[in-house]
């Protein structure tokens, strides 16, 4: 059942993003195996894009890993809140560590919504069916993007490269649910390019820290005033 839910818009949207990532990886000179390994291992489009962009900018390795890790922090609260929903308390915790690799924003949101009115025994298999299907579809999608970028005329390649930026613009702006998230987007969007002018290599991390902290402080001040 998880599989059936995934095989619609969720998998299509993720695959489109990974198609774009494959194209980006090709343009940046990554080899095919590493491109697919990024999708399989990191399994988070923002982190994958950060990896490619920072590598292209010549950023030092440890800083790149730090930046990728920072984009993945969102998985911590997601994982913490998902586990009580899908885990059967009578069963051991160990298999959950394997299931956790499949966790991503889409599968989290769907599972949290759908599993609430499901019997406890069915939930883990729903999650694995859903998240596993998304993951499995994104591997060939990355491969396809990589090949298509190499063999398509320049105009199509341009379209593929534009896929990820526009994907995140729509996703971030369209799905920003809280005022905190919205102000973090605005502050980050301003801080990122400005700090890039100062230092391209550090800009992703410093832009996030400066923009994110500013947004956090602004919202805290506003919250106090409301209260």
């Amino acid at each position: 059942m998880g599989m059936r839910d995934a095989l619609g818009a969720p998998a299509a949207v993720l695959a489109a993003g990974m198609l774009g990532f494959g194209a980006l990886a090709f343009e940046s000179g990554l080899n095919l195996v590493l491109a697919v390994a990024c999708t399989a291992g990191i399994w988070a489009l923002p982190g994958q894009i950060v990896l490619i962009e920072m590598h292209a900018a010549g950023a030092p390795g440890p800083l790149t890993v730090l930046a990728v890790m920072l984009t993945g922090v969102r998985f911590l609260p997601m994982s913490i809140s998902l586990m009580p929903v899908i885990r059967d308390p009578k069963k051991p915790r160990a298999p959950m560590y394997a299931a956790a690799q499949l966790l991503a924003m889409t599968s989290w949101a769907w599972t949290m919504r759908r599993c609430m009115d499901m019997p406890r025994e069915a939930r883990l298999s729903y999650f694995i069916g859903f998240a596993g299907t998304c993951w499995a579809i994104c591997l060939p999608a990355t491969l396809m993007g990589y090949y298509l970028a190499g063999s398509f005329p320049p105009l199509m390649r341009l379209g593929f490269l534009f896929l990820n930026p526009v994907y995140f613009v729509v996703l971030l702006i369209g799905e920003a649910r809280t005022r905190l998230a919205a102000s973090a987007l605005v502050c980050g969007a301003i801080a990122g390019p400005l700090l890039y002018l100062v230092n391209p290599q550090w800009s992703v991390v410093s832009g996030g820290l400066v923009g994110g902290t500013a947004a956090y402080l602004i919202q805290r001040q506003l919250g106090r005033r409301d209260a």
Partner: protein
Amino acid sequence: MLDLTLLVIASAIGTYVWRGLGVLLSGRIRVNSELFNWVACVAYAMVAGLISRILLIPSGMLVQTLLIERLGACVLALIAYYVSRRNLLVGVGVGVAAIMVMSVIRGR
């Protein structure tokens, strides 16, 4: 290339740390703490900053497009997204088509 392989492996492990830590900590700590709020802000701002940098100061093939075209395509994508009742695929499709059409028109 070896460096890059290590980078990919380290990044994969580094990302997994959060997923695995969540399993370990679930049921033991609160999710809605102020620290999480701040961390979420930093993560959002980082991705937003990277995307806006790619749009404003592009590298690679996107250099061939004009700023107004990139921003215009994003606006069209957002309009399509809302008109299609929040269909992400429609929004992205319109955005990609828009940048291609605009660069063809300019090229003639």
